[in-house]
């Protein structure tokens, strides 16, 4: 979206107008300066500091936190390489699996499918229910002692599929369960979003194509996807941003410590654990890792944005 034209003619502002603009923007601008500008500058500062437990003061330690981070990353049995891999796999899972499936499902759903409106309402439910409740019901369903899914697998003679330690405590299945949770809880919202975009495609364009003998598959690839490019782009971009922020489902389903022990940590989980749970002493390490993420992540996000804008341009209709 670009800044649009101003309806008012350019002229010298009155005192009243200046006061109005200042008053209206006072809170948002102060908030922005404090919670974005200051906080980010302080993050950089914090990453070069350390907390002295004896004096209770912060002192400058140069690149020590970055060095500690590097040692953490490269030491034997480090959880960080796996956490970084996991975080990137969330991005790939979203952009290469969830979004394409959502687009296909939304296309079919938009073709006057029986009970389509009912499906949309049901599919939307995970978007309004808190992640706490969603993760809890999900873990109950797969609980190895009482969950309906293991009971069903057992009845079907597939009990060998159930890991001895349970789905969430086994290193073989824990991360897969997190990805599966992402699909289960996220795909419905994406389907509703894309269906909304498809219904806004002008009917006459599709009709003209149909007269020219366009098959459903061709309609999907040559009309639907290009016309909803901006919506698909938005969903793909959301996938990019979760690389550095995905941790809540992991923490709620697996628990912070368990997640790392079963190889299901993420970048954000590592930072949150350092900032929130490990105490003040570990905060600078979290900040240092955060700065590294911002340095690596910003170009990734912008390159993705550029690629999306190039291959999925937004059409006005």
């Amino acid at each position, binding site marked *: 979206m670009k800044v649009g034209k101003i309806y008012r003619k350019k002229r010298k502002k009155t005192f009243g107008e200046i006061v109005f603009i200042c008053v209206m923007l006072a809170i948002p601008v102060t908030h922005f300066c404090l919670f974005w500008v200051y906080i980010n500058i302080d993050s950089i500062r914090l990453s070069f500091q350390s907390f002295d437990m004896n004096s209770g003061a912060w002192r400058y330690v140069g690149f020590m936190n970055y060095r500690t981070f590097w040692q953490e990353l490269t030491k034997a049995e480090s959880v960080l390489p796996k956490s970084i891999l996991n975080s990137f796999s969330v991005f790939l899972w979203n952009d290469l699996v969830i979004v394409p499936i959502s687009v296909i499902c939304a296309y079919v759903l938009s073709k006057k499918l029986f009970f389509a409106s009912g499906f949309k309402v049901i599919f939307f439910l995970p978007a*309004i229910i808190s992640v706490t409740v969603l993760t809890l019901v999900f873990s109950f369903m797969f609980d190895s002692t009482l969950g309906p899914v293991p009971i069903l697998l057992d009845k079907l003679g597939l009990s060998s599929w159930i890991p001895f330690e349970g789905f969430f405590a086994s290193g073989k299945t824990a991360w897969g369960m997190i990805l599966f949770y992402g699909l289960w809880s996220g795909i419905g919202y994406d389907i509703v979003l894309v269906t909304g975009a498809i219904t806004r495609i002008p009917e006459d364009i599709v009709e003209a194509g149909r007269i020219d003998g366009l098959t459903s598959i061709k309609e999907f690839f040559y009309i639907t996807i290009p016309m909803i490019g901006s919506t698909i782009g938005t969903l793909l971009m959301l996938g990019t*941003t979760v690389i550095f922020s995905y941790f809540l489902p992991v923490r709620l389903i697996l628990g912070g410590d368990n997640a790392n022990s079963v190889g299901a940590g993420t970048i954000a989980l590592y930072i949150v654990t350092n900032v929130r749970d490990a105490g003040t002493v570990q905060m600078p390490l979290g900040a240092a890792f955060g700065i590294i*993420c911002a340095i690596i992540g910003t170009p990734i996000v912008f390159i993705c944005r550029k690629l999306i804008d190039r291959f999925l341009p937004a059409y006005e209709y």
Partner: protein
Amino acid sequence: MGNRVKREKSDEIVKWVFFALFVLYAISLLYPFLWCFINSFKTKHEFIRNINGFPEKWTLINWEESLEIRANGITIAQMYLNSAFFTVGCTFLGMFSSSATAYIFSKYDFRGRRAVYTAALVIMMIPTTGSMAAMYRLYNNIGLINTYTGILITAMGGFGSGFLLLFGFYENLSWTYAEAAQIDGAGHFRIYFRIMMPMAIPALTAVGILQAIGHWNDYFTIYMYAPEKVTIAYGIQIINSLEGVNLPKVFAAMMLSIIPVLVVFACFQKVIMNNTSIGGIKG
């Protein structure tokens, strides 16, 4: 002609295959909640021996007892109050701030306007996970950890998805209304609060409902900055860890936590779904 009939038939088959998949997915979404709901009417002992059936005797004991559970010393009723306070306060402050910012940026020209607008859009994309540490330190230093004020202040930002939606709305709102009011002697504040803002009520309502649901369900902010001001979204997790041995009670508490959201969704389902679709596109 034959090809067309064949094509239509195969389209029909594909539709029914997807219909079956959608039914399965819908069941997978509804069944867990139904399972928890039904099991919340069983006693602890009955649940252990009858996990998947209907209760032999329906009891409300778990629902009654769940009202007395305490998480960090706070009952569910108090969690509801905290959630309601944060939801109303954060939504109101957030909307007020976003609306003011969107109105000024869409209707007034001033130096730096374009730069700030572009910066606001660009910074939304920069990953700022690392800023959690500095934010925590700031809250700690100025005594905002575990305070209502701290959480309300967090929500007062004027930029974000709400800003983008309202910017689009105000941009399309004709300035002639304001001009007519100016001729009648109305000042800038009166034009905004008496004319333009009331006209934006449908857009504000839509954005407000979405933000309110987000605040009601917010786990992260409370977990990070105010774990003592337990809300229902945060408290359910604590209740599960405290009462995990009596799962029917946890199920009852869970159901209690989602009832308000489901009621709001039932009342404003169209508004919520339509605006989420638009929000996705604009974002």
